């Protein structure tokens, strides 16, 4: 029975130490109880980000640049700009660029309509009209102004 007393004494001592430990552990439990509360916003934040990130990742491939851009449409607009600029200065050379721009714009429209091809077509037509007009005016002007000097613009 000494052993039992010994055990009881040990139990008592263990109980007292357990109460002391439990009393000392109460703040720990309180903090342990508080920590899940404090972790909830982190969990909410993680849930928020996990809900948002797939949407953002799914949204980025939707915007591939140059997907619908046609090379012929680009070339048509470049030739159209050149036809306007050169059509005013050189006449028929600008008209040649305009013809090239119209051809490129027509082929670009067959592959798919785009704003660049439409702009190239408009600029090319303007360039051709200007080129033909300037060529005719230059011939008439040069024939009419024979014998008179020209002021150089260059």
């Amino acid at each position, binding site marked *: 029975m000494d052993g039992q007393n010994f055990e009881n004494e040990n139990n008592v001592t263990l109980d007292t130490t357990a109460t002391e430990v439990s009393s000392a552990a109460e703040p720990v439990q309180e903090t342990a109880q508080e920590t899940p509360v404090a972790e909830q916003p982190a969990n909410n934040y993680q849930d928020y980000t996990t809900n948002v990130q797939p949407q953002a990742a799914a949204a980025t491939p939707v915007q591939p640049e*140059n997907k619908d851009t046609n090379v012929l449409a*680009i070339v048509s607009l*470049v030739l159209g700009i050149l036809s306007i600029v050169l059509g*005013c200065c050189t006449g028929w050379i600008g008209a040649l660029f305009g013809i090239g721009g119209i051809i490129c714009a027509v082929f670009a429209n067959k592959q798919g309509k785009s*704003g660049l091809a439409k702009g190239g077509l408009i600029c090319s037509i303007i360039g051709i009209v200007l080129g033909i007009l300037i060529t005719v005016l230059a011939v008439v002007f040069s024939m009419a102004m024979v014998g008179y000097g020209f002021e150089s613009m*260059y």
Partner: protein
Amino acid sequence: MKVCTKNSRNLEDYLYLTGWIFLLTGSIGIYLYLHIVIPNLQGYTCVVHRLFGFYCPGCGGTRAVSALLAGHPLLATWYHPLVPYTVVIFGGFMLTQTLARLHIGGIKGWKFHEWHLYTAVAIMIGNFILKNILLLGFHISL
């Protein structure tokens, strides 16, 4: 993460090849125009300006090219802003694409954007309107 589609990669490749064609033919054309055509057309002037008294959309282009070749970019911008704009955009595209293809300096080639061309059209129209306002309204010539 930037998505590089096959179409965008092919577009830059085609534009790079087209750019070399434009660069070679344009260089030959500008050389012939400045050294052969212009000296043989003494007294040649813009027909539009001569007949109607206002500048055409191309007026100042030759002077801009000459000023740019002489190393005067600001003067070239005054003569015709489309010329230095083209040199910057087109030259930058070709230069960076060439460096990127040669793997020099880890440079990424410029991508084509549609606003490059729309800006060129806007510059051409704006220059045409502004120069004629300055000429007809304030008597400021090129």
